[in-house]
């Protein structure tokens, strides 16, 4: 394992120092490993927090700032943060208007956020939770932990951040969040595994002529393996299951072609070109898009596609100003 780290145990603590030094939008509570907005939000506005294991940067810490998150709770690499961190963040960011927890549907995240929400309620903070479960690779959600929360989380954090920023109350912010969660779908694939620092070697072996289809964001193996193929075929393998799951025609769509961390941008652009061609052929109109590394899996090579079926309101909120390390416009 070759990584730019000091030791496997210190990855998160050391990275937080660099985040604090580089990102003027945030301040860092190193004890609780929470990244907060540098300037707290106006009193009376709903606050928004998220969190999860580290190794997915820029998510979530890179999305803290005006128009997006108020705080991000950082777990160890690929490990959900703890309820204490979430409680601390929740009570700190609450301006009196309540707090929305954005939770990706992984067992660990769900349980830790659940405990935190119970504790926050005890502490008198109004908490609502939105669960993102957008990964169409998980087919049979009855006999599993349900669909994983992946790419839609990024788009949701942006949109919901804008709703909170414009002063919508907790119920309506939660409704916007639910709308995005209900209308977002993702599908990912990997060319390589990633290497968790404390494990010291790749989570799984992937032969030089195979790829893993239906990968999550924790370096866990995907749904099945198949022989390596060209970009056109891979694009089809991402697009088809998403379109099969939800009808995206007749609405403005927000698309994200996301890199897993180890894939060069030129390949992501190339894949986006292939995806757009397929979507256009299916009569789907992409109104907004992101191409780049937004929700990553350490050094994994591969990509994921996320589509959110939007409406005028969601597009308006998408276009609202945002000022974070990971997403910025209008400011």
């Amino acid at each position: 394992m070759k990584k730019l780290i000091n030791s496997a145990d210190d990855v998160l603590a050391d990275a937080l120092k660099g985040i604090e030094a580089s990102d003027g939008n945030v301040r860092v509570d190193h004890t609780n490993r929470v990244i907060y907005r540098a300037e707290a939000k106006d009193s009376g506005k709903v606050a928004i927090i998220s969190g999860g294991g580290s190794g997915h940067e820029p998510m979530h810490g890179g999305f803290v700032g005006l128009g997006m998150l108020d705080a991000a709770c950082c777990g160890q690499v690929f490990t959900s943060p703890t309820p204490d961190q979430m409680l601390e963040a929740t009570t700190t960011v609450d301006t009196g208007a309540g707090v929305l927890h954005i939770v990706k549907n992984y067992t660990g995240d769900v349980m830790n956020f659940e405990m935190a929400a119970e504790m926050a309620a005890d502490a008198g903070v109004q908490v609502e939770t939105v669960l993102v479960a957008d990964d169409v690779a998980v087919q049979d959600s009855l006999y599993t932990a349900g669909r994983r929360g992946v790419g839609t989380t990024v788009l949701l954090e942006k949109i919901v951040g804008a709703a909170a920023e414009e002063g919508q109350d907790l119920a309506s912010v939660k409704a916007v969040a639910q709308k995005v969660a209900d209308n977002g779908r993702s599908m990912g694939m990997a060319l390589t595994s990633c290497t968790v620092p404390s494990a010291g070697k790749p989570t799984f072996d992937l032969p030089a002529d195979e790829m893993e289809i239906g990968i999550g964001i924790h370096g866990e193996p995907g749904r099945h393996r198949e022989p390596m193929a060209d970009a056109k075929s891979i694009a089809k393998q991402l697009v088809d299951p998403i379109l099969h799951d939800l009808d995206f025609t007749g609405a403005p769509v927000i698309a994200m072609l996301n890199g897993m961390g180890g894939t060069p941008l030129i390949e992501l652009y190339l894949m986006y070109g292939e995806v757009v061609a397929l979507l256009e052929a299916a009569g789907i109109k992409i109104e907004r898009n992101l191409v780049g590394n937004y929700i990553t899996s350490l050094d994994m090579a591969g990509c994921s596609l996320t589509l959110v079926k939007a409406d005028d309101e969601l597009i308006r909120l998408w276009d609202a100003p945002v000022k974070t390390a990971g997403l910025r416009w209008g400011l």
Partner: protein
Amino acid sequence: MTLDLLADWLRRFAAIIDENKTYLTELDSAIGDADHGANMARGTAAVVTHLDEATTIDGLLKKAGMTLVSTVGGTSGPLYGTLLMKMGMATGSVVELEPDQFGKALRAGLEGLIARGKTELEDKTMVDALSPAIDAYDAALADGADLWDAVDAAQQAAAAGRDATTPMVARKGRASYLGERSAGHCDPGATSSAYLFDALADVIGT
């Protein structure tokens, strides 16, 4: 079961986890995200630093549970944390437990864990080791066994339960995303749960 013995139990658990953290992470690499060893080692090491503070059994167990919750994260943090916290809540403020009281505490802990994890048997989780172990413990006591024999029965049942997870298709947690591909691998959480009873047998045996 004295306060000291319980503290030794958790100390021994931490030691076994630390010895086997690479193995636990390897198991978690196969059907998860390669962090179960690091998670459990971090949490149990933190638990050990607080064991001397406790003056009562419920204090010891609750503090240990809370420490796991606040240091482990992931799936195992809330689950192991709940197990110990609920055990503590069930014992009351005492410094010694009869074998059957310990059994009731274990049962309460297990029920808390199952409620938190919404798990059933054969979901291929730690419950598949914990549940038969606690059943065996209770059954042995009911048959008139002493503490040592009951723990011995529990240890064997935990190991058998752990081994039985290998052919199972996971229906909970991260491994469930693998579907059929999760079969053929031993569950990391069931493995660490079996260590809990190995640790108990070790400290009771000595």
